[in-house]
């Protein structure tokens, strides 16, 4: 455990400026709608969402490190826990849980019980295979890459 206690996700979330939740959800929904109209292919949209997330993630990581006061994680398990408990809490105000660890400890699932991005969202059948929240995986990918963790 680091000597200077890392700040809890709650404390940081309380101290930063907030955006209206509905505005956030609806804006995201509008972005995805527009991407579907422009790109038409579900796979292309997934890729674009991932790329957008990546661009956000590479900047977000510095903000996370500056505010959360965490030191380098010892192993991937700690990394996943930190993302789920501190990261998501800090930026989206929700806590995620980490499950589904594989035998090596190299693969897991991060589950969001309460995902602000998908409030009020219904996907029609034409959008089969759309990873609606793919921006989140892009963010994580970008953020981890900046601290030298390469992942799929």
């Amino acid at each position, binding site marked *: 455990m680091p000597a200077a206690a890392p700040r809890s996700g709650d404390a940081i979330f309380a101290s930063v400026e907030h955006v209206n939740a509905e505005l956030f959800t609806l804006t995201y929904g509008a972005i995805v709608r527009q991407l579907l109209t422009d790109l038409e292919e579900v796979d292309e949209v997934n890729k674009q969402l991932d790329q957008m997330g990546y661009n956000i993630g590479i900047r977000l990581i510095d903000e996370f490190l500056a505010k959360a006061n965490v030191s380098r994680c010892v192993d991937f398990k700690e990394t996943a826990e930190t993302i789920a408990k501190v990261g998501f809490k800090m930026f989206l105000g929700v806590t995620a849980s980490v499950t589904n660890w594989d035998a090596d400890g190299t693969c897991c699932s991060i589950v969001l019980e309460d995902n602000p991005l998908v409030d009020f969202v219904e996907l029609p059948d034409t959008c089969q295979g759309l990873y609606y929240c793919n921006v989140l995986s892009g963010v994580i990918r970008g953020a981890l890459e900046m*601290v030298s963790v390469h992942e799929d």
Partner: protein
Amino acid sequence: MAAAAIYSLFIINKSGGLIYYKEYGSAGRMDTNDSLRVASLWHSMHAISQQLSPTVGCSGIELLEADAFDLHCFQSLTGTKFFVVCEPGTLHMDALLKVIYELYTDYMEMPIRCELFDLNLSQAVQKDRVALLGR
């Protein structure tokens, strides 16, 4: 007792390129080429010091003490380096560097916000000067 003063601040990215340079001292602003040169010089020295260090897990130079100045350096986990050149014996530079890091993440995401960053940065540096003068 002379008031402790900050002479200049540099922010460099993980490849050694200069992101931000601000002169606070009376020496006058270094020209662009010189500031770029100083930045890459420090970046190289910092990297070399990590290799040379006898201690395991060393993350590079944090403090350089010279006759006419002290240089405090902070490196984030993403490799961005913040270093400040100040009067010898200036205290609390580490804390200042952490504050600068936070301001950087808040305001440096877009080029537009550079003015706000400048403003908040001056306030942080000013606050430091005042606090030290009051001692």
